[in-house]
């Protein structure tokens, strides 16, 4: 185990806080000894300051690293993320269960948790169509609430559609769970509430009929801002 850090001489101003927050312990890889080199070779990024750190990494790499001492000598701007720990089973090399394995490993751990609990088909804490959710985004609109009318389950490409009536206009927004712009998904009120009898009405997976019946829409989204 070792830390990957910047050399103090070439620390770029303003970047030190970003990098300090993102120093990550990584397992020593099997390729030639990196701890021997004094150059910074990989830096792990959090999504929010990814771009700043990426530009800085590029600058650093151009200045200080020669082709021969790079981890990856074929590209100047390649990004080297941390790999999932452990070696994958041999059957994956023949392709058995490869896409399912990628579905588990491609999204980040937080997003994977959301996909496998909230948007799962069978998890007890899953969210049913008719639930009211609030999504916090990094871009405008920073927050959107609405009734969940459909969930499109595709592993890393899972997405859902929220419908709301905003200023007397029906608005639907589709959010991709794995998108870096989606910060938070909050459950405002579960479908049918806690009363099991009320859940009987909501039997469909896709509630597209709400587009044509405003009265049912207002009943579901009562009090949603």
């Amino acid at each position, binding site marked *: 185990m070792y830390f990957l850090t910047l050399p103090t001489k070439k620390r770029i101003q303003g970047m030190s806080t970003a990098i300090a927050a993102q120093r990550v312990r990584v397992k020593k890889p099997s*390729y030639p000894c990196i701890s021997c080199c004094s150059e910074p070779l990989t830096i792990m990024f959090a999504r929010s300051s990814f771009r700043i750190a990426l530009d800085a990494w590029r600058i650093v790499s151009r200045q200080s690293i020669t*082709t021969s001492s790079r981890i*990856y000598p074929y*590209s100047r*701007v390649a990004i080297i993320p941390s790999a999932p720990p452990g*070696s994958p089973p041999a059957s994956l090399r023949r392709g058995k269960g490869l896409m399912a394995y990628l*579905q588990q490993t491609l999204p980040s751990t937080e997003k994977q948790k959301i996909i496998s609990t909230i948007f799962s088909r069978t998890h007890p804490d899953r969210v049913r169509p008719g639930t009211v959710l609030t999504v916090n985004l990094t871009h405008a609109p920073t927050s959107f609430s609405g009734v969940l009318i459909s969930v499109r389950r595709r592993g890393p490409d899972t997405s859902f559609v929220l419908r709301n009536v905003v200023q007397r206009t029906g608005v639907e927004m589709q959010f991709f769970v794995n998108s870096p712009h989606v910060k938070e998904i909050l459950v405002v009120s579960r479908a049918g509430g806690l009363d099991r009898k009320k859940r009987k009405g909501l039997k469909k997976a896709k509630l597209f009929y709400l587009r044509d019946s405003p009265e049912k829409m207002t009943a579901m989204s009562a009090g949603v801002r």
Partner: protein
Amino acid sequence: MFRVWAFARHSPFCSRRSVHQSLRANAATESSTSAVTKWTPASIRTGVIARKRGMTAMWDEHGARFPVTVLQLENCQVTANITTLRKDNSEYHAVQVAASDRPPKTTTNQMLGHFKKAGVSPKRIVKEFSVTADAHVPVVGTTLSAAHFVPGQFVDVVANSIGKGFQGVMKRWNFKGLRASHGVSVSHRSAGATGAHQDPGRIWPGKKMAGRMGGKRITSQNLHVVRIDNTLDLVFVRGCVPGYDDAHVLIRDAKKKMVALAQHNQAKGLYEKVLPKGVLDLPFPAGTEELSKTLPPVILAPSRRTTSPFIPRE
């Protein structure tokens, strides 16, 4: 019976096509030093054979979503280096590559002999990639890996498209068909007229008509390699690729965006533009399994966008 071939004169180049040539044996006679060959803008490298495993989506550093196809190399090995002399005495060089192990029981004796000579296990698919003379893979039997491709480069992916069977002109050739009503009788999806009148008085050859659609060799050009995985030999390319899942595909450096650009920019003196932005070099003559073990397990290409599409421009 008069057998013409029995009287064929054998020219000095009688074995015109030399297969299973290990260049190391030849190189030893030519020069004592074993030089490490480097990629040049005039070189054309070999391709690989992979399997299309499926599609998914990825997000770049700006947060823009893009579709990717996952291609996996399944024990892709070099089975021959081919050097042939054409009738006009020009040389044809190729690297023969095979992939996907198959049981010896289902392999013909002829192919078993071919694979034994190459020193590889029997394979399902054997294809050739034409290369320049310096791009022969020295050791026959070398296992190629995903490290052959560099994230940030462009590739052409060749595969057989999904067969659609016998299809009408509307699906096959995007014809508009006829009206749905207003008196059209029984020919709503037909082609309509097929020619002129007495002049030419026939149907032109190649007239677009109904017929078998799909199941042909199709090339998707200039696909951006976004990610390679050295532990599982995966190559993620942006966009879609012909064929169904688990079909064999051929991946090679893009003829338009890599090979041609490299040659032309080198000739013009634009040395920075010879390779795509950020790409410094390409594994030459090929990215092998040994090379992939020395490289990081996962390598990503940065986005080709410079500005975020989510920030409005003034």
